[in-house]
């Protein structure tokens, strides 16, 4: 192998800074330890994120959300993908990135609009530099590559980070995104949250590659794999990836090994394809417990901090509960807005038709 090839390949083992219990791992890596302030912010965001996730799951059981794909267990990746970006950078999430979006500062109710079913995208993508939550797998990865290239052309120094899952690495658009980003040296970070299952299908049915991170080499993309439940490692590697992209070195692919502890969505039955014992094993690698242990041991986290963060999380959940329990404002005639910049005559006719129906029914338009 040439030196260049080796430089692109991921580490022999996933990068980790922490043992499963949160002690410092013995094996050294080339990645810098994130600063304490970032780690504390990540801890706080994970506590808040997990509480948000539990509340969203509860709201789904109460019928307030049409569907909710939980990221319980994946908090290190969720929080990390948001915290390594500057405000001007762009995040391209999937439907499972609710916690990342909350961490990015988007109103939790706006984050849940898609899943409640009152709007396809509740927030303003331009304001938050965050693309709509994407459902067709990997399709947003090519957008992220294009947007990153646009930023490079404009010389803004901004980067894009796209989240995909293990299943999405089988989609053509994942490969086209890697290829386009590499050819055009787009400042793009691709984060694969390998949570082991694409709904029910295990990783070995997605790929025969040595790892998902190895898919980068075929496109000349620098790649790395990381323990996705080790928040220190996730932040260290993602920060390095963002820095690599921002410095003009082209895209960077990160595979994070993690696990979704909940079913795919509330509508899924995980017992049909995996064992409780397997999930239990992953519970012992809980990202929040690991970072808590790490920070406490170094005196960077106190009981008072935890009380503060927990109170903050409870407050967010309570606010979310209250606001989600109110029926959303629906404007049926708005269905005809934003199909085109200016409605066609045909859409104007159809709007008039619906308007008449609503009047007859006495439904607010």
């Amino acid at each position, binding site marked *: 192998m040439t030196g260049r090839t080796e430089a692109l390949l991921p580490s022999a083992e996933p990068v980790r800074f922490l043992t499963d219990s949160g002690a410092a791992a013995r094996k050294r890596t080339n990645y810098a330890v994130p600063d304490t302030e970032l780690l504390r912010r990540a801890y706080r965001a994970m506590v808040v994120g997990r509480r948000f996730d539990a509340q969203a799951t509860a709201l789904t059981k109460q019928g307030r959300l049409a569907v909710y794909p939980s990221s319980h267990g994946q908090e290190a990746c969720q929080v990390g993908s948001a915290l390594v970006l500057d405000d001007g950078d762009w995040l391209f999430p999937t439907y499972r990135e609710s916690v990342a979006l909350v961490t990015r500062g988007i109103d939790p109710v706006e984050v849940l609009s898609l899943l409640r079913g009152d709007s396809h995208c509740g927030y*303003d993508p331009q304001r938050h530099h965050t693309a709509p939550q994407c459902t067709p797998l990997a*399709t947003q990865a090519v957008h992220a*590559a*294009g947007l990153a290239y646009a930023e490079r052309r404009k010389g803004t120094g901004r980067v894009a980070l796209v989240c995909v899952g293990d299943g999405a690495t089988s989609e053509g658009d994942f490969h086209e995104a890697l290829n*386009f980003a590499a050819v055009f040296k787009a400042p793009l970070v691709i984060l694969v949250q390998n949570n082991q299952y694409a709904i029910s299908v295990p990783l070995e049915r997605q790929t025969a590659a040595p790892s998902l991170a190895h898919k980068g080499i075929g496109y000349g993309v620098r790649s790395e794999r990381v323990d996705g439940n080790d928040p220190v490692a996730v932040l260290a590697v993602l920060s390095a990836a963002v820095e690599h992209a921002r410095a003009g070195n082209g895209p960077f692919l990160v595979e994070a090994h993690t696990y979704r502890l909940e079913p795919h969505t509330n509508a899924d039955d995980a017992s049909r394809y995996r064992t409780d014992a397997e999930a239990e094993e992953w519970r012992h690698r809980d990202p929040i417990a690991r970072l808590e242990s790490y920070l406490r041991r170094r005196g960077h986290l106190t009981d008072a901090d935890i009380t503060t963060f927990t109170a903050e999380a409870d407050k967010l959940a309570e606010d979310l509960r209250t606001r989600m329990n109110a029926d959303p404002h629906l404007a049926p005639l708005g269905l005809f*807005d934003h199909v*085109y*910049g200016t409605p066609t005559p045909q859409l104007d006719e159809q709007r008039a038709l619906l308007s008449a129906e609503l009047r007859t029914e006495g439904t607010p338009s």
Partner: protein
Amino acid sequence: MITMAKALNTALQDALDGDERVLVFGEDVGALGGVFRITDGLAAKFGDDRCFDTPLAESGIVGFAVGMAMGGFRPVVEMQFDAFAYPAFEQIASHVAKMRNRTRGRVELPLVIRIPYAGGIGGVEHHCDSSEAYYAHTPGLKVVTPATVEDAYSLLLEAIDDPDPVVFLEPKKLYWSKSDIERLDRTEPFGRAAVRRPGADATVVAYGPGVPVALEAAGAAAAEGWDLEVIDLRTIVPFDDATVAASVRRTGRCVVVAEAAGFAGVGAEIAARVQERCFHSLLAPVLRVTGFDIPYPPPMLEQHHLPDVDRILDALDRLQRDDRPDTRYLNIGGAA
């Protein structure tokens, strides 16, 4: 004399000249100038950061254009042939068409997807599809197809200026059609059909590659005493109901010409709209002259598939001018 290919090339030049956000990219559009030479000379004149080749992946090209449009550019991408655009269909249907709507107008995608389409050039398979119905059936897309040299220039410039994504379908067989105009200029905006030949006895509605055939048929029909009005839609979406309906209400008869397979096609949509709007003015059923419901034939057989003058004249014969009922469909379901 200006060809349609030259008119399109000039429109791209003018757009690149007038707005630095405009970019042209796709397969072989750089040094080669595109397989039909529509982008000829653009990379040399504007630099290969304004007109450039991409990896050979249509979904990637369109998806990349989505991201670049989100980033403030106005991409004009070329799909090499109609059937080669299908890998991009998911991007077009799920993202290009919907982005404005799903973001409540906060994200616009001013991009143009140019697609050389339809047959009549002796192309081998996968090079001759009439794919307009797929796009026209997808709300959020504008679907445009020029039939004249003048419109090729004007419609492409308007497509690039438009805040919405436009699927710009270029009839391959008209690339080398000529006009003796001296300079290219803007014509009518989107959503306005053009009456290419005024007439009193029947309306022929056509678009793109069907327009010259319809005009030729009108010439031949004049010899048989039919005075045909020929309408060129210019834009399939937005659709100009007003011009079409006004014409048919006046003539009382309508034939729709479309090269694509007839079943569930744009021709069917036009016929339905005419009947909904003009029923009390119609003196005969609205007829369609379309391609057969078959995969596009091998080039040595394509002349049997394509709507031609004779088929349009045959349709005129069935327009019940002598008040004789049309007996073709007496056996419903086709049982002998």
